[in-house]
């Protein structure tokens, strides 16, 4: 029931009427199971990409105890209050949210280096996410590795999931495990809602090594996980350079990594983009003779 201006109850036609009055924010978790596969790199570039498209976006670091999203976003000096402070009621969301230095619609909620992961309570996280939903179009949750509390809280309220994997067996197996958790233990699974939408992202992909048989191919990975591939990010030294300068890799205009992340965001928004950077570049005669990249 809704109340009209005079305070009388008016009949709402359906629940949906009430829901569409608030912003229909989406919670997207970036998760993997295995550590060091590129979750934080992807969270930063994905959130930036959405913001560049005009969506008001916030990216939350769930890796309590190991701040690093703020480093990659280049805002570590501006962290005064963090996610845990907000949950503990020691700071308001507005005090803790950091506006990105270069991108208009982008905000960062950093993780605490000092608190332990038990600081993340289900009620606390839910409250923060619900408050953010009123203001933002997208809430991107950068999950820690593993399947412990932090990773669990990061995925619990997700509407969609970007499952990040590297082209090797152990990483793919861990992603399978995370997919199982998403489909059985997330809020949506527990409440019988429509299931969490799953997207696969293969990072650090090296077509030469795949061709040599040292790494799994996209088809091998698809055969194991059987979910649609949203993007393939090539292995590149540009990523290290980006993180050293405190800027998300997607901002390194003209690089393969940046293009791959921009394509990924476009596909996420429903655009049709062919996969790039998945095949070995055949070098032309001139390049072979004179080097080149």
């Amino acid at each position: 029931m809704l109340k009209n201006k005079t305070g009388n109850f008016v009949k709402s036609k359906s629940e949906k009427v009430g829901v569409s009055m608030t912003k229909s924010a989406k919670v997207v978790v970036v998760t993997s199971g295995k550590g060091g596969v590129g979750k934080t790199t992807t969270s930063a570039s994905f959130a930036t990409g959405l913001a560049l498209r005009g969506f008001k976006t916030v990216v939350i670091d769930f890796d309590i105890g190991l701040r690093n999203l703020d480093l990659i976003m280049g805002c570590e000096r501006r962290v005064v209050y963090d996610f845990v402070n907000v949950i503990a009621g020691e700071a308001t969301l507005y005090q803790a949210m950091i506006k990105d230095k270069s991108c208009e619609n982008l905000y960062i909620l950093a993780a605490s280096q000092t608190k332990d992961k038990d600081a993340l309570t289900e009620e606390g996280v839910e409250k923060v996410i619900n408050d953010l939903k009123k203001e933002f179009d997208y809430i991107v949750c950068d999950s820690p590795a593993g399947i412990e509390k932090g990773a669990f809280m990061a995925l619990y309220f997700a509407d969609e999931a970007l499952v990040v994997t590297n082209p090797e067996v152990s990483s793919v197996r861990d992603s399978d495990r995370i997919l199982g958790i998403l489909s059985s233990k997330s809020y949506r699974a527990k409440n019988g809602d429509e299931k969490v939408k799953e997207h696969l992202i293969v990072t650090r992909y090296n077509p030469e090594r795949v061709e040599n048989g040292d790494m799994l191919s996209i088809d091998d990975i698809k055969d194991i996980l059987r979910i649609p591939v949203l993007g393939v990010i090539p292995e590149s030294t540009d990523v290290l350079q980006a993180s050293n300068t405190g800027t998300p890799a997607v901002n390194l205009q003209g690089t393969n990594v940046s293009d791959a992340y921009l394509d990924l965001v476009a596909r996420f928004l429903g655009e049709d983009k062919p996969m790039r950077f998945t095949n070995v570049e055949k070098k032309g005669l001139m390049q072979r003779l004179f080097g080149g990249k």
Partner: protein
Amino acid sequence: MSIKLHPARFGYYILKISAHFDMEEFEAKMLALKDFDEDAKYIALELLELISEREFQQQMTILDETLAKNKLFICFVVSNPLINGTVFCGKPVVNVENNMDVKNVIPSTKMINYPVRSGIIIRNDGDIIVNELVSHNAEVISDSNIHVYNECRGKLIAGANGDKNAMIYVQRFNAEYISIANVFQVIEDKLPERLLNKAVKIFLDDKERLNVVSLN
């Protein structure tokens, strides 16, 4: 007008349940009961775990609501050493003869239409039918038969309660562990070409050895 008394039989089904039961399984069971006996009406509840009245009250409410939807209702709670008093969550507690032959008459089939991922366990006392991939390290456990109409790379355990006649059918066989009536085989090495990713049937022979036979 005369008054006559006729003896009447009071038929009921005993629902044995643990304190934290799986709602989905419970609903499936009740539907199966209605399939089996559409006139079924009375349910006697038997608790398998020690739990306080206060703690169980919420579950009782859920049970009552779900049962009512199926035109079933709990007429009493079976007395057992875990319960003292004559009323439990608003239901009378009744002594039922111990020697009653209670058989699990209606194991229902469980149908799985999503991939069974690594770390997930699917369990059922009736058959299990899986229509999607069973991943490495996923487990499908049935007291009865298992059918996988897809590829299986995980663990399949049929006849988990000791039923030696249980069977396993797999469309694309690449399992890492198979077991029937506790006779098991860990499959560590690559399967021979005639079985790998082939449609197979798995059963126990009369010497209680596991047999994997290609269906092609």
